């Protein structure tokens, strides 16, 4: 019986092999060949020319992740302290914006941040000088935080909500005041949530190509834009594009590996929700 039901995953295995594993191998193949299909390291070497773009992407992505953590943690904590009914409502409110197409939401930020946009018009109407917001690195970070902060709040809320109240009472009982309870019990116990929150924000933030295009103008090119240009843009060169993708993938895998060092490995399933 058992051996028969194992076979049920065979169609899935075949599907994933064709549509996930083979494509990744193709990326590797393209990255190490030239247009004629002969082996070359030229593409990988060429990626080095774009190191400033890589550094900018990682820097802005890390910044957005850090801001999301700092802003999201208190909210997740506040939500976890409410009654169950209130928690459900608040979590739904956190998730609701994600149900609106993210292109539209990002587009709306353009309306807000433009030089003669809503925020600047408000500033002008109270006599303050207009501020250049759109097409700056700051706008890109804001867009990232805005789009991905729910992915930070949800896993944080999940771990915070699961912390047994008696553990907190035990810490108080052993002499810990509010501050020590927070630093020595709540923060360490929410580590798995922090780890998955960081991964879930950092990965899409570092590889985005829409946010930078819409809010960053031309000056804040990111890795995602670079890849886009090689496949569907003006600089058509799938070999170089594959090399960049491969490097991006390796960077992400290394980051995840480092992050997992901090985790005690109990939380492999907690990635998703």
């Amino acid at each position: 019986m058992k051996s028969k039901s194992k076979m049920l995953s065979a169609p899935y295995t075949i599907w994933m092999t064709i549509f996930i594993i083979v494509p990744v191998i193709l990326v590797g193949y393209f990255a190490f060949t030239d247009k004629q299909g002969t082996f070359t390291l030229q593409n990988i070497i060429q990626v080095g020319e774009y190191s400033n773009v890589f550094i900018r992407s990682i820097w802005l992505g890390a910044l957005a992740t850090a801001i999301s953590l700092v802003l999201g943690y208190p909210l997740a904590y506040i939500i976890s302290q409410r009654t169950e009914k209130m928690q459900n409502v608040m979590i739904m409110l956190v998730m609701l914006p994600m149900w609106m197409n993210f292109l539209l939401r990002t587009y709306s930020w353009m309306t807000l941040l433009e030089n003669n946009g809503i925020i600047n018009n408000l500033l002008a109407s109270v006599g303050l000088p207009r501020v250049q917001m759109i097409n700056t690195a700051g706008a890109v970070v804001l867009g990232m935080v805005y789009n991905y902060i729910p992915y930070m709040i949800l896993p944080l809320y999940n771990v915070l909500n699961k912390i047994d109240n008696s553990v907190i009472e035990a810490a108080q009982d052993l002499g810990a005041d509010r501050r020590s309870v927070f630093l020595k019990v709540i923060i360490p116990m929410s580590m798995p949530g922090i780890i998955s929150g960081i991964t879930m924000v950092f990965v899409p933030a570092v590889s985005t190509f829409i946010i930078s295009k819409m809010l960053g103008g031309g000056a804040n090119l990111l890795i995602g834009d670079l890849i886009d240009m090689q496949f569907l843009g003006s600089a058509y060169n799938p070999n170089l594009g594959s090399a960049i993708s491969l490097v991006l993938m390796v960077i992400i895998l290394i980051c995840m590996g480092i992050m997992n060092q901090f985790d005690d490995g109990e939380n492999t399933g907690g990635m998703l929700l």
Partner: protein
Amino acid sequence: MKMKSKIYTFFIFLFLYAPIIVLIVYSFNDTVTGSRSVWGGFTLRWYRKLFEDRLIMEALRNSLIIAFSASFFATILGTIAAIGINSMKSLGRKIMMNVTNFPMVNPEIVTGVSMMLLFVFAVSLLNGRTLGMGTLIMAHITFCLPYVILSVLPKLRQMDPNLYEAAQDLGCSPFKSFWKVVLPQIMSGIITGATMAFTLSIDDFVISYFTSGTTQTLPIYIYSMTRKRISPEINALSTLLFAVVLILLLFANFRQKKAPSEKAAKGGEV
């Protein structure tokens, strides 16, 4: 302290909802110049124009076809796969879980690009048709599958393994036992998975962008609009979509409240 946390919550939600409110308000903006930020009075003009726009309606239709078929196939394939994975020993299971998790941690753009390479390669091999609806549906099934599996697997793990045997012991054929006993137990996971698959599919831009060829889906159409100076039709469209989602969510919430909540049922077993 309480006051402080209330103010904090307010500002975070203001941040989350400000762009959405702006979108909705400006969908009623009566402007001639198409300016995005000057208020020119109330109008429903953009809604009327939206429904007259053949391109938008076609993109919407494509998106719906893709989302329905992708979530349908992903749900069936994923549920069957989850049952298979659940009965595996630790090593096989570990490999399958890594394969399942991979597309979820891999940057979307890399998944999109790699599938584009596959489809272009296949098209050149088969000397056949170009990218379009077919490739879009296949790509969408692929990125929806892990979500279905990860929704169904926990339900299977929660289920008492003796249930399936008990059903057979009471005279059900293996197929009937699955249909009558296992399926109802994991139904909530399947529905969650299917819903997630549908919403992910209809909302997807990055992967569709690389695998669509010339076919327009709604997000791709929106993207092409944002690159030009845009008509407020797009605001009207987003307002409508948001309203639909809101109504669906409220409906789902209402239905959930009527049925005894899962949490309460669990509490009884403790």
